[in-house]
């Protein structure tokens, strides 16, 4: 990174499309989550500013640190939020085709998006609460479960190849910019059988990554009392809520970027992109509101069984040119 462009990178990370923009979008989307959930139950639901007020309130409340906790208990929520925001910046940078060349590839984004989950595991374990420990252990198993099929699903466009004007074109790159450019050239990945299967698998995996029903085992309100987040209060809890909001914005954007063509630079293109993201979020919420929670063994069997099998099938189809 050249030093004279530091200001530009900081602007990307802190204002647009990074922290400020993604936080605002994430809070708006978490309102959509609660509102659609309420409508499904024939309720009116919270007003649009609700997630914002929740976070402001949590930021102003007292912080209680349980006696057995170590420093990580307070540091990890901030690490989680920073990592999610960095991942969001990289994804947006590629999706919008901002100047400055490639910032990071699919693998970097994938690792960054794993950090919030790990922070929940470590933070929950650090709190010393037995229920939080149970939640942390479930979250850990869930991460082991969904990461494999999710990564394979996101690799499908990398292996896709098309016949464009008489010659074979393949993405054959892990850079997000490269994947967006390949899709501009050869059509969106999702409109091929392999891409469609990949999107299905990725959707289910993201449902687990977001901790939504049927994969909300780590937070399990009813029997684990919010699981790994149980001992958190005040600003650290606000950070975890913000992280969830950022992930709720980042994951659909990542899926749309990698599998559904990114953002076309025109008012119509931006509107289409917004509609795609909103459609994915609404799908998350509808799945969340119409399913019961699964057990941890069922979740693992599902992710390592059918989900992985379908992801492998999608990869094979992509390699064969479908």
């Amino acid at each position, binding site marked *: 990174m050249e030093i004279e462009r530091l200001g530009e990178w900081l602007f990307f990370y802190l204002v647009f499309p990074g922290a400020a923009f993604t936080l605002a979008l994430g809070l708006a989307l978490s309102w959509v989550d609660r509102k659609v959930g*309420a409508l499904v139950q*024939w309720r009116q*639901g919270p007003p649009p500013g*609700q997630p914002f*007020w929740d976070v402001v*309130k949590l930021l102003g*409340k*007292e912080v209680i640190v349980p006696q057995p906790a170590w420093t990580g208990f307070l540091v990890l929520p901030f690490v989680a939020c920073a990592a999610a925001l960095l991942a969001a910046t990289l994804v947006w940078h590629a999706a919008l085709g901002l100047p400055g060349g490639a910032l990071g590839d699919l693998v970097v984004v994938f690792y960054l998006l794993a950090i919030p989950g790990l922070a929940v595991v470590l933070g929950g374990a650090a709190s010393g609460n037995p229920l939080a420990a149970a939640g942390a252990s479930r979250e850990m198993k869930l991460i082991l479960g969904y990461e494999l099929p999710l990564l394979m699903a996101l690799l499908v466009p990398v292996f896709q190849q098309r016949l464009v004007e008489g010659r074979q074109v393949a993405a054959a790159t892990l850079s997000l910019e490269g994947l967006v450019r390949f899709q501009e050239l050869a059509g969106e990945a999702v409109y091929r059988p392999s891409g469609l299967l990949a999107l299905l698998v990725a959707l289910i995996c993201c449902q687990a990554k977001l901790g939504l029903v049927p994969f909300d085992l780590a937070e399990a309100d*009813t029997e684990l009392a919010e699981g790994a987040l149980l*001992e958190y209060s005040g600003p650290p809890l606000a950070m975890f809520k913000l992280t969830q909001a950022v992930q709720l914005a980042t994951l659909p954007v990542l899926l749309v970027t990698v599998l559904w063509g990114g953002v076309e630079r025109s008012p119509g293109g931006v509107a289409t992109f917004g509609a795609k993201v909103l459609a994915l979020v609404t799908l998350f919420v509808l799945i969340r509101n119409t399913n019961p929670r699964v057990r941890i063994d069922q979740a693992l069997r599902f992710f390592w069984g059918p989900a992985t099998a379908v992801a492998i099938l999608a990869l094979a189809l992509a390699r064969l040119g479908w």
Partner: protein
Amino acid sequence: MPATSLFDRALRKSPWVFHVGTSGCNNCDIEIADCLTPRFDVERFGVRLVGSPRHADILLVSGPVSRACRAPLQEAWLEMPRPRAALLVGVCACSMGAYRDAYGVAGPADRVIREVDPEAKLVYVPGCPPKPETIIAGLVKLLGEL
């Protein structure tokens, strides 16, 4: 903190409630659940039932406090981050109702909470059981006190 600060407004717009049933007869619990149903839908006001007292702003107590429930209720109160307040729902939580002078009870919830925190802010919602409207009215009053 002045009443117009951003945090003060946020506190009134997003009261998160932790419910402790202290050996009540479940009648109040049914009315409390009613508040969350489509007809009353307290989520309109930002109210959420949370699973941990660490996340809560308001402790909702229903039932007379039995001797076995005394310590857990006090613990739940002390675990809540400040600013905090309690909503005592039902005549049992307010003044023990039919359980007055019974051998197994440790006292009404206000006395039990004030044993550990004399400054605790409390709002009483009497009734056997109180209507959901009454509970919501009590909640609004409590938000004014916060």
